């Protein structure tokens, strides 16, 4: 059957992933070959499947749970992106992970993740999607767990945060299925009435938690420290954004009729705006290469959610375009971080500096991706951000301002990062640092080039994204090319120049790139807030766990109370009662005689 080809992006990585488990110890090259082959084959299949429309269905658990998959323009686009990142990062990992422990588990989880992610995108039945979606929890846990000895705490944190959000998604799916009478994604089309809004919000929780938006974000910075680096480039930077935003788009565009002006739309935009600002403020003060990036991975999601939340075509296109752009530059940035770590042995910015001359290619890739994320024209990030700005401004000045302020701090923090890591004085320890090997550079170069291409020739990606919205929504517009609103571009450029001036001023003041933003970090009120935030005072996970423990303690006391009734009260009452009865048996002849007479009288009365 021709249609079965749609199963390949799920089966091939899964099969190879399970194969990796069977490779005995010591055969490192075999594991690497399997990973390379699987991702390469997967990429070829994704290319072959691109542009095709396939629907496929198998009976499964019954009761409307059919194993149905569907490939169409949107899912094919995401499948291709997943396959590309999978391949490039596998290539990078082969060198990067070579001397790391738990190689077998790493590649196995890597490939299974690839398989599950493809499954999520292809699924045309909500429960099947949930099956793959929640399955990702396992590999997420596994991949963080193998990072280092104490990484299990972060792995658990990630699992609990995402797992709880997934349970909300589960109930949301149940509710959606109930409201629409079907679980087939392509047949669902619901209004946002009272129950519809509840269903939408539950699904949205699943989507944005996968994408790593606030308040479901706090495991990502921890994972940046604990997990293996390719994990960061693959999962939080690329896959989770692709999947989360894909699903968010599906629910707000296809499954529910999200309209501009509905309160749900305002809620989404607010989540987006808050995420942008708070996460970027945290990114600004980080002193670790990877941790700084991880906060940006959170902040950038804000733009996508904001864009899609506007429920305007320009915003949705901007959000989706930003999703793919972010996946590109963010994974590349993580890869540059990995290269720096591999060469110098550290990602701590205080111990870095001046390595730009020693690692020119890495530095060049960093510059390209850093200006892309900062939204400098003509790189890809600029174009997607302008689309989001356009939509945000139409929905409310406050959302636009949040987005622009976010951009300012993004630019400022990347100036700081680049300056602190690659420029400045080269320390004695880093004198002998060398550029990393070609296999690691190649993925970075490819992705950096894509950032340029997607910017200069933005009609290419936008030409793929626009059909996803359909002719009706687009109403003849074409959003590719240079932004139409010149004022927005001028403001963007002013903001970016402002960030540059801020940096120059900061460096002049403190004398080092690393301390360029100290005037913001230690500003009067901010310093107190930053201090608390660094101590995890505001971590929703920590707060949630505290609440759960407090709540549990009440439950436990209640339980002990019930047990006390059994163990003490019942026993005491029983003894008290029998003690009284015992007293009646006092061995006195006359007492027994009275008892007998009384009994006799009762019997006579009864008989009469």
């Amino acid at each position, binding site marked *: 059957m021709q249609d079965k080809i749609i199963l390949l992006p799920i089966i091939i990585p899964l099969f190879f992933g399970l194969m990796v488990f069977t490779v005995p110890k010591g055969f490192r090259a075999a594991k690497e070959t399997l990973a390379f082959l699987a991702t390469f084959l997967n990429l070829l299949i994704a290319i072959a499947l691109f542009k095709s429309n396939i629907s496929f269905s198998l009976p499964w658990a019954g009761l409307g749970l059919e194993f149905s998959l569907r490939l169409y323009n949107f899912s094919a686009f995401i499948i291709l992106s997943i396959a590309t990142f999978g391949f490039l990062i596998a290539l990078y990992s082969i060198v990067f992970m070579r001397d790391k422990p738990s190689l077998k588990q790493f590649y196995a989880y890597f490939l299974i993740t690839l398989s599950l992610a493809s499954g999520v995108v292809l699924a045309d039945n909500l429960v099947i999607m949930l099956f793959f979606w929640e399955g990702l929890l396992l590999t997420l846990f596994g991949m963080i767990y193998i990072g280092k000895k104490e990484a299990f705490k972060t792995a658990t944190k990630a699992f609990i945060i995402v797992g709880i959000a997934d349970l909300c998604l589960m109930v949301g799916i*149940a509710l959606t299925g109930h409201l629409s009478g079907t679980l087939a994604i392509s047949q669902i089309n619901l209004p946002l009435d009272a129950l519809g809004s509840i269903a939408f919000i539950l699904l949205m929780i699943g989507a944005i938690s996968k994408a790593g938006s606030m308040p479901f974000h706090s495991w990502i910075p921890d994972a940046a420290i604990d997990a293996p680096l390719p994990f960061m480039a693959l999962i939080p930077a690329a896959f989770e954004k692709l999947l989360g935003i894909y699903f968010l788009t599906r629910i707000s565009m296809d499954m529910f009729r999200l309209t501009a002006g509905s309160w749900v739309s305002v809620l989404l935009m607010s989540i987006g705006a808050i995420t942008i600002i708070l996460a970027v403020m945290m990114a600004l003060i980080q002193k670790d290469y990877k941790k700084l990036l991880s906060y940006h991975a959170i902040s950038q999601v804000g733009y996508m959610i904001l864009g899609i939340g506007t429920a305007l075509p320009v915003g949705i296109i901007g959000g989706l375009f930003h999703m793919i752009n972010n996946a590109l530059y963010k994974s590349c940035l993580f890869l540059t971080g990995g290269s720096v770590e591999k060469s110098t042995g550290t990602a701590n910015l205080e111990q870095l500096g001046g390595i730009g001359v020693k690692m020119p290619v890495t530095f060049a890739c960093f510059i390209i991706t850093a200006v892309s994320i900062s939204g400098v024209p003509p790189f890809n990030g600029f174009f997607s951000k302008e689309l989001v700005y356009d939509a945000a401004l139409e929905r409310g000045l406050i959302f636009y301002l949040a987005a622009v302020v976010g951009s300012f701090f993004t630019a400022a923090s990347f100036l700081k990062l680049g300056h602190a890591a690659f420029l400045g004085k080269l320390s004695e320890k880093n004198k002998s640092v060398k550029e990393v090997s070609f296999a690691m550079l190649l993925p970075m170069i490819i992705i950096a080039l894509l950032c340029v291409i997607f910017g200069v020739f933005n009609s290419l990606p936008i030409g793929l994204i626009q059909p996803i919205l359909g002719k009706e929504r687009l109403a003849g517009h074409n959003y590719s090319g240079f932004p139409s609103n010149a004022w927005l571009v001028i403001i963007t450029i002013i903001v970016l120049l402002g960030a540059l001036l801020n940096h120059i001023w900061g460096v002049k003041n403190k004398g080092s790139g690393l301390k360029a933003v100290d005037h913001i970090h230690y500003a009067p009120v901010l310093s107190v807030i930053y201090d608390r935030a660094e101590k995890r005072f505001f971590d929703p996970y920590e707060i949630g766990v505290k609440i759960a423990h407090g709540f*549990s303690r009440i439950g436990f006391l209640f339980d002990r109370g019930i047990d006390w009734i*059994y163990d003490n009260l019942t026993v005491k009452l029983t003894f008290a009662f029998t003690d009284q009865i015992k007293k009646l048996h006092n061995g006195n002849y006359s007492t027994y005689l009275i008892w007998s007479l009384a009994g006799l009288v009762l019997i006579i009365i009864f008989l009469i």
Partner: protein
Amino acid sequence: MSYEYIVFSIVLIPIVGAFILPIIGRISHRLRNLLALGFVAASFMLSLYLIPPALAGKVITLARQFPLGLNFVLTADSLAVFMACVSSLLSAIIILYSFGYISHYENQNEYYFMVVLFLGAMMGLVFSGNLILLYVFWEITAITSWRLIGFFREKSYVLKADKAFLVTVFGALAMLIGFISIYQQAGSFDLAVIKESLKTNPVANFAVVLILFGIFSKSATLPFHTWLPDAGVAPSPVTALLHAAILVKIGLYVFARLFLASFTFAEFWHVVVPLVAVISAIVSAGAALIETDLKRIIAYSTVSQIGFIFFGLAIGNGLAIVGGLLYILMHGIAKAGLFLCAGIIEQNTKTKDITKLGGLITTMPITAVSFLFCAFSVMGIPPFGGFFSKYMVFAGAVNSGHLVITALFLVAAFMTILYLFRLFNLIFLGAARIPAKEASPIMVLSVAILGALSLVGGILIWYPSKFVQVVVTQMGRM
């Protein structure tokens, strides 16, 4: 052999076999162990043999009349066959594990006698087509479990066994009065006759309350649940039997047998029972998050999960009932696995205090992974079996429109993830505290089977799901 006699043998083999075991035990320990496994495995195999007729919708009845209007009726419909398969499969694995676990304790003859009798009584209860017969088997399980909980003979242990016995027996007596009340309403103890005569009107609320009293006390639901954590003093395979295969599943089974398959109750019970269940689920999940005793935590987890099953069975929706019955299967497998792992940990580290444990994944990897698989299944993470049952229960509840109760159960599901991860992390991850090796191969094999079954149950969900759909269709609830 006709199907009637197969049903009879499923009950008879373990009950009669149990009495032979102590005699054999005087001759050869090995033979006694193998025979014990053989009796239970025979029950399992014969139960499997009943699946094809059950799938075809056939009801097998074996009836003998006795004087005084009493009768002996065994009925094997699809619900009974489903439950028989689940219980006997888990019991067989638990007995296999016992070969290793119990081998260095005294009173092994008594142990195997009680365990096999326990299973035999369960089988009898499952196939009972008569309320009095059901009550008799119900009480046999109470007596055997009492002896098994107090197996180690220490004074405080025996007191806890007494507690379990007293609570469940008081519940059972209340239930018996409920049965008599049904007799007054329907004029018979025979379930088939009751079903006919109560076709149109629901059973009296008075009877429902009394029967629920018995069911909740047996299935350890708040406020009759505290005996179950206390019963953790029993040997681990026994706790696994109590929690996964037999004892607490009795209440659930009888609930399904009476209120779903035989007669209906008034509409408001569809709200009251889930409400009791959700309070039970949340309170015990909270207790599981605070407790530090390994087996008590898993016991509270059972109480909490039982809440989910009652929720599915009682909410009054076909999909939820399918979910609830699948939950019995998936939870049984996973919970047996967790307890057997706990047994290994307890035996090899000589402690049950999880704050003193840690880092065991490096020295007992197979146990750790099996434990994790079972825990994932209880949490409801795909591709493990628990995912489907949890989803179906929730979806069915949403379909029946009880959103508030569903939201409360969602809280309980959150807490499930929290307490199981706390448990796993404290025992298996972090710095190693007490050095311990992997247990004997046969014990590790048993837990590995259960871990694997948790996974396979999810991947091959088609088969149990289809069977359970037949069950629910036969009940007339779908």
